[in-house]
């Protein structure tokens, strides 16, 4: 007799834990032919709220880590996925990918994570500056994370799209609340298990599954979310822009095919950074006439 398989229960990832949605609701993820493949949590606005609270709480811990340490943690994420490659490939196939393209998507995702792991302790050196002001002051500008970022995961790719925007956001020290790909949600939850096993502090990344149309509003009107990222969704752009006005969220919208190799780069990190400029007087005493 064939062994009875243990089926996976997909839950949301919030505050470093895997609760069910507080709403108790679910929706079915379907395969290409429309057959149900899993019951997903149908997240609610309260799930969004809880996730934002967790993300805010985790901001100090995550942004306070040394850039080098963040780099190691991102690399660790890549390592863990590498070991669980087959699980992601299976999920992608289950969601309708061809085997070859599923393998490629997982491999590209791993490479992209490694790419951003490498940026963590470097991007600041590139965009920062010492500004030669015309007074006796030392003046420098450097990056700081914008804070809590809401990310609506790209809806056209299950894993690579998520990774392509989430990695630059957290590489820069932000924490994030992700609305997962609605129709291809499996990888995002499995990915959260990877995050959980990779020394990413609880709450730094929160992933909620559900109806994008329902969750966009609580996320983009949330006064404690500092920035918002999404890809495509052109028909929702105006609505999201309007929702974001009240606390002047930094809205970053992209319209890209994340499978392209040129959809990674420094600016995806700096899009979620604030520039801070610091001044301090320079005491000019002595040595003024020194010619070395």
């Amino acid at each position, binding site marked *: 007799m064939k062994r009875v398989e243990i089926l996976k229960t997909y839950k949301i990832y919030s505050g470093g834990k895997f609760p069910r949605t507080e709403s108790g609701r679910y929706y079915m993820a379907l395969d290409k032919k429309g057959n149900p493949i899993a019951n997903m949590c149908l997240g609610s606005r309260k799930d969004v709220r809880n996730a934002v609270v967790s993300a805010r709480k985790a901001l100090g811990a995550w942004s306070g880590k040394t850039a080098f340490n963040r780099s190691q943690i991102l690399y660790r994420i890549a390592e863990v996925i590498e070991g669980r490659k087959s699980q992601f490939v299976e999920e992608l196939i289950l969601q309708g990918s061809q085997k070859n393209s599923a393998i490629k998507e997982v491999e590209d995702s791993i490479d992209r994570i490694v790419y951003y792991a490498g940026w963590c302790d470097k991007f600041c050196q590139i965009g920062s500056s010492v500004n030669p002001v015309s007074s006796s002051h030392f003046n420098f500008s450097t990056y700081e994370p914008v804070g809590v970022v809401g990310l609506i995961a790209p809806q056209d790719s299950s894993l690579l799209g998520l990774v392509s925007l989430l990695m630059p956001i957290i590489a820069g020290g932000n924490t994030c609340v992700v609305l997962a790909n609605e129709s291809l949600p499996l990888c995002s939850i499995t990915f959260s298990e990877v995050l959980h096993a990779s020394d990413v502090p609880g709450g730094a990344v929160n992933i909620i599954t559900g109806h994008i149309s329902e969750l966009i509003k609580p996320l983009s009107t949330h006064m404690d979310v500092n920035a918002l990222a999404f890809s495509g969704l052109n028909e929702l752009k105006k609505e999201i822009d309007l929702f974001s006005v009240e606390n002047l969220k930094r809205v970053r919208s992209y319209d890209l095919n994340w499978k392209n190799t040129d959809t990674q780069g420094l600016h995806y990190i700096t899009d979620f950074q604030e*520039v801070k400029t610091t001044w301090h007087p320079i005491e000019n005493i002595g040595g003024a006439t020194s010619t070395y």
Partner: protein
Amino acid sequence: MTSKNKNWEYSPSLESTGHIKLKKKYDLFINGKWTKSSSKKYFKTINPNDEKLIAEISHANQNDVDLAVKSARKAYDTVWSKMPANERGKYIYRIARIMQERAKELAVIESLDSGKPIREARDIDIPLACNHFFYYAGWADKLDYAFPNRKISPLGVAGQIIPWNFPLLMAAWKIAPALAAGNTVVLKPAETTSLTALKLAEIIEESGLPAGVVNIITGHGDTGASIVNHPDINKIAFTGSTGVGKIIQKAIAGTDKKATLELGGKSANIIFDDAPLDQAIEGIVNGIFFNQGHVCCAGSRLFVQENIADKVIRKLKHRMKSLVVGNPLDKNTDVGAINSKDQLQIINKYIKLGKKEGAELYQSTCSIPKKGFFCPPTIFTNVAQSSILVQEEIFGPVLTIQTFRTVDEVIQKANNTPYGLAAGVWTDKGARIFNLTTKLKAGVVWANTYNKFDPASPFGGYKESGFGREGGMHGLSAYLKLS
């Protein structure tokens, strides 16, 4: 023989207005020509020192905005985007140089029209405005170096709306980087302070800049709204209130218009007990009384470590005695006129509210002119974080003073605001400075100084103080498409 011990006062020392040239009526500067508005309407610009008429200013309507945008588009398509970058830079250098030549005239007009002390217009506003053009002129042919690995191109036509607190300087902050990056411009100054922008139009005319590259149109809020809503504008740059900033954001929601917003603030200025105290007092004064407190990054919330609070307040009160409030054109004036009657009413409303909230008021005892719009330097002690006075931007010479006990407490309170434009920290301890400058959520942090500006130094806020940076290399990205 000993000297008589009578008080030694400064005699009036008025800057001469003999050399400035002002027209009675100003039209719109569109496509390199002075153009009458199709509204046929003019409004008055007055001197806030004596409420006398200075000139009449044209009120641009939708048609005028349309004409200005068309001329900017045409100049962009046919001339400016085709011009070699170094040539573009040379025009910007020319503008800088002519501004320097006419600096005195600009300073006097700025002081007349805005109410700011001539000393500040002469020593701060005008030189900084000239320097801003000079700084960005040099960037025009070096943009590739600012954004490694990116393909850059200008955005097109930039619509720029500026406030009345630093009229010419804000025009420079907007126009210089826009031109350097290869855009053309439609700029609208604030209705109470149009004159120096119009003088800048004369300078631009004198510089031979191709027609339509910079268009300067005057008017009220409706003129600004027409710019914001114009479909052929690619970029909105706005400096002003957070309220209007949000209106603009809503207006451009869903469009491809890029925006930079430089909005309000309620910046914390924090004094620790080991600070260089007398310099900190200067920092407080410079932070809140500079330009009558009409400064978005004004250090309007003072936090003093409790063990030195009495001393700091005593010193501050003493320092306030030597602030000269009066005719902006007097070279000894430290605090000039409030920009407009409306603004004075707003400030007075807050002062009244402060008293009602039970805060303790202290105002400079200096004499205040009878005519014109004046407000003596004002401080409020005995306020709490929850006082309205502490939470809302007043945009006038009104300071609130709170005390704190620990580093942690003051960081929390300083960040406990929807704004995040600037902050000041005063302590002799380097390690503490870096702790605070890192943790304060503000785009500009002044340590052991306050209210310093420089073309090379990026400026702009966190949170509801807006987004985007102006100044320095970072200021360029606001005017470029990067791909």
